[in-house]
């Protein structure tokens, strides 16, 4: 039996185990992100959001999932059957495939490819086929119009997002996601502080890439009535839905890894200890946070109107308590375990923080018109990303050749890029007036 655990086998079993965990957890997480979105949206719109299914709507995602499974799955009569079946499949597989290289914790990573970032970018760019073929196959010119629009949007914003990423890669020097995080650990500074404009460009690019918020033109409800997803229903539609939210998590994961220091604890190099113990001050934070949540759940439990809701709330409180126990327990375990568990917590915290911005944008901004969207992409974001790349490279060069500290040179680079951004924005306004006049 011993040979079963030889390194080569273990190298195979562990990633498969991680993969199973991710594929299993993902739909659940996507469901709860939907709930988070509806609750945050309700909060911003002076209302309560789902409250009926489970305490404070906590069981709503399960209800949604069951509904989607039971819904009738209609295929339009003149649709292209093969494509209609294939399109959502392509979307979902590409979205799930991209998780292969995502470093959730120092050890919790399916495969540490030395071209990790490129692999994720490549695979998520294949997601376009799901949308384009879906729009084509449903054979109604509403969805075709929506599909073509989203293809054009994805292609143009991928460039912008890619360039935004490269400016962070300059600092990291390697494509492997692990090395990028380690680089941020070695340099003791998250890359967002060195190249904030790159982060901003990537954020805008990633929102456009996942068809969300001000850029959700392809399924703009009012004009094209749900764009390429119009003809889909039931489980097939939920595949698209899962793909969209999986993409959102990937995009948030990439941003966290590259700009927000992946699984690193904030102030990773700060090593002050709790008096008299070997526990670092900041390491206790996650446990305390989750403990707070647990207490709040227990506090709410008796207030729930229905008995079952009291039970579920208590259950959720217990769950949080267990998680905080694990987090606290790992404080005393070996550093590897500590890093693994806390790393995963910090990674997830940053991902959800990033997603909060997604939701926030969605509820405050109206929708861009298609030509404005394209103009923003090609005439503002991509040139800005190029300029940002060049100035960052120069800053890096100066700091390496003349020994100035990277912080100083990066601030200079940021200043130059901001100046260019102002100039670009100014004549962008002039153009938008011109095009408005043209369109008369």
């Amino acid at each position, binding site marked *: 039996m011993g040979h079963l655990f030889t390194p080569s086998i273990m190298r195979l079993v562990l990633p498969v185990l991680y993969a199973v965990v991710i594929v299993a957890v993902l739909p659940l997480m996507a469901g709860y992100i939907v709930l988070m979105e509806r609750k945050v949206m309700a909060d911003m719109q002076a209302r309560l959001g789902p409250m009926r299914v489970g305490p404070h709507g906590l069981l709503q995602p399960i209800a949604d999932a069951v509904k989607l499974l039971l819904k009738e799955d209609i295929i339009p009569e003149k649709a292209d059957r093969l494509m209609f079946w*294939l399109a959502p499949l392509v979307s979902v597989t590409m979205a799930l495939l991209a998780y292969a290289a995502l470093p959730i914790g120092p050890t919790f990573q399916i495969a540490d490819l030395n071209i990790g970032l490129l692999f994720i970018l490549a695979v998520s760019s294949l997601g376009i*086929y799901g949308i*384009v073929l879906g729009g084509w196959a449903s054979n109604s010119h509403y969805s075709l119009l929506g599909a073509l629009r989203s293809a054009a949007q994805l292609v143009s914003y991928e460039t912008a997002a890619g360039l935004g990423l490269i400016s962070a890669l300059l600092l990291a020097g390697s494509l492997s996601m692990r090395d990028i995080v380690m680089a941020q650990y070695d340099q003791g500074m998250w890359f967002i502080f060195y190249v904030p404009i790159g982060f901003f460009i990537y954020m805008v690019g990633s929102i456009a890439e996942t068809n969300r918020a001000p850029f959700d033109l392809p399924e703009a409800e009012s004009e094209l009535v749900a764009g390429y997803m119009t003809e889909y229903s039931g489980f097939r539609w939920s595949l698209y839905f899962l793909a969209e939210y999986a993409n959102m998590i990937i995009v948030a994961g990439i941003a966290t890894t590259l700009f927000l220091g992946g699984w690193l604890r904030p102030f990773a190099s700060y090593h002050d200890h709790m008096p008299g113990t070997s526990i670092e001050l900041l390491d206790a934070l996650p446990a305390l946070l989750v403990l707070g949540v647990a207490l709040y759940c227990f506090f709410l439990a008796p207030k729930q109107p229905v008995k079952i809701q009291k039970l579920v709330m208590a259950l959720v409180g217990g769950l949080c308590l267990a998680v905080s126990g694990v987090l606290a327990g790992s404080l005393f375990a070996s550093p590897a375990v500590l890093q693994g568990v806390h790393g995963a917590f910090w990674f997830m915290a940053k991902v959800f923080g990033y997603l909060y911005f997604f939701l926030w944008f969605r509820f405050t901004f109206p929708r861009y018109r298609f030509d404005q969207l394209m103009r923003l992409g090609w005439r503002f974001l991509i040139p800005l990303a190029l300029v940002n790349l060049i100035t960052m490279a120069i800053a890096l060069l100066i700091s390496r050749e003349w020994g100035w500290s990277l912080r100083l040179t990066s601030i200079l680079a940021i200043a130059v890029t901001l100046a260019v951004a102002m100039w670009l924005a100014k004549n962008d306004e002039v153009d938008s007036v011109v095009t408005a006049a043209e369109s008369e």
Partner: protein
Amino acid sequence: MVLNAILFYFFSVLAVVSAILMVTRRNVVHGAVYLITTLLATAGVFLLLQAEFLFIVQVILYVGGIMVLFIFVIMLVNLDVSLLQYQFNRQRFVAGVLALALGAQIFLAIKTGQKSLFPPSRVPEVLPKNTEAVADALFGRFMLPFEIASILLLVAMIGAVVMAKRRA
């Protein structure tokens, strides 16, 4: 090592079959999808040769970029007209000759290159990171061809923009 051979044959058969399917389909979009599978299969073969940078470039460039524009054009062009047109194949003879010549060449390559039909078994333990290798080659020894190629691309892009501007 056996896994290597299995994967190799899987990818190559997939590539050949989908290439044939691509040519024979009546519906153009199905053809495009089979073309994509062919490209992905060849990318798989690159991976087997441990050239992962090439694998990624193949996936991003061909499948992620060029094929998207292919499908874009297919959808924009009004296809009913092209379906009705008479599929000319008067050049049946020329096509035959060309196929034979190509076949002979490939056969010769296999004959002289490798003795056995199985791929070599040398799998070096630690692999040089070939992204860096490609980068060094590109910016090191082949600096000049790289610059010429980039200028060529630039000219092509400007040409496209000028033509589009005039037609709009």
